[in-house]
């Protein structure tokens, strides 16, 4: 139990996917202009991560021990079809949510945080429960980073910023300062 908790906190804060591993930078910079959408996108990503972790575990245990060189191709196919499936499911069950998520849903396929999650948890040899916990922590970590940046960006719109540094350049510098703050969590568990 303690180990699961450790995995969760580690992927949530200390090894935050966005701010420490640089995974999922594209949506992080691209769609973080409002709090509302970045929170929704974070939750959708968390959900896809959970399903991917499940599928990765099944694939790793039953198929890939016979053909390890197929790992990358099978992972990406699983992710692409999961996203497609979820898209159809949401469209059928709740058209309002579907419209709210819009273009972000298909874009999750090329979010490297999802593929990174599958590869990292394979490399570390996580079992079923560990994999699910890792996915939850990473997904919430992604959501936290998105929401933090979106909040800061909404604030900065009110202040006067030189035109030359506006946009991506300033967002990257804000992200750098956020990342520096997250480094402070590294001392949280000094015993392990």
């Amino acid at each position: 139990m303690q180990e699961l908790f450790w995995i969760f906190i580690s992927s949530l804060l200390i090894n935050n996917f966005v701010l420490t591993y640089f995974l999922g930078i594209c949506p992080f910079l691209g769609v973080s202009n409002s709090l509302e959408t970045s929170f929704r996108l974070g939750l959708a990503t968390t959900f896809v991560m959970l399903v991917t972790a499940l599928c990765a575990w099944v694939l790793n245990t039953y198929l890939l021990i016979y053909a390890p060189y197929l790992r990358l191709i099978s992972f990406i196919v699983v992710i692409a079809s999961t996203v497609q499936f979820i898209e159809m499911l949401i469209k059928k069950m709740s058209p309002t949510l579907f419209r709210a998520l819009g273009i972000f849903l298909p874009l999750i396929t090329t979010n490297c945080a999802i593929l990174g999650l599958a590869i990292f948890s394979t490399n570390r040899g996580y079992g079923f429960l560990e994999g699910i916990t890792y996915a939850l922590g990473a997904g919430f970590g992604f959501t936290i980073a998105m929401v933090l940046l979106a909040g800061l960006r909404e604030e900065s719109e009110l202040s006067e910023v030189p035109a030359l540094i506006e946009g991506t350049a300033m967002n990257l510098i804000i992200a750098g300062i956020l990342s520096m703050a997250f480094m402070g969590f590294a001392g949280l568990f000094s015993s392990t």
Partner: protein
Amino acid sequence: MIESENQDYNELIKGIWRDNPVFVQVLGMCPMLAVTNSAINAIAMGMATLFVLVGSSFLVATFKKWIPKQIRISCFIIIIATFVTVADYTLLALIPTVHKELGAFIPLIVANCMILGRQEAFASKNTVRLAVMDALGMSAGFVFALFTLGAVREILGSGSLFGVDLFGGAFEPWIIMILPPGGFLTLGLILFFFNWVTHRREIFLERVAEAERSGS
């Protein structure tokens, strides 16, 4: 003949500066930030990306007539994933130390949006020759960007370049530059510099145009 050579040259050159995938289009940021804590890692990553991009652009442009429109994205992804697997195993066999440092970021080339973007925007619509030229130019621009960021971070963060000590003992390295925040900060400042250069150039061109008008 001269016309087509000119076009080849255009496709090749545009990726390096005018349409640079990183500095101008802001694509492929994840590997860009993650592996640039030393110049040698940056070059290895750039070479792997070059191989994947040129290979998959060639295949996509060759088979574009037979790829059904509805499932083209999945087809592109599978082609890219095949080349990435080849690159992964080749690096593991040739230079295992670099492979170990890059770790999970070699397989993550699959999710590099720059590569998929080039297939969708260019290779699937143009001839094989132009597609390969475009891929070469874009990856040259990507390598250039990776190298710039990697060199700046290594010089400031470890006081060396390609592992060779530059300053002797006289320089106190800024450790923050090789840690994650350094990546964000350096790239932000480089983008700022790029904006500044573009801005100055526009002003310069405007002045030239004005001088011409008043002269004639």
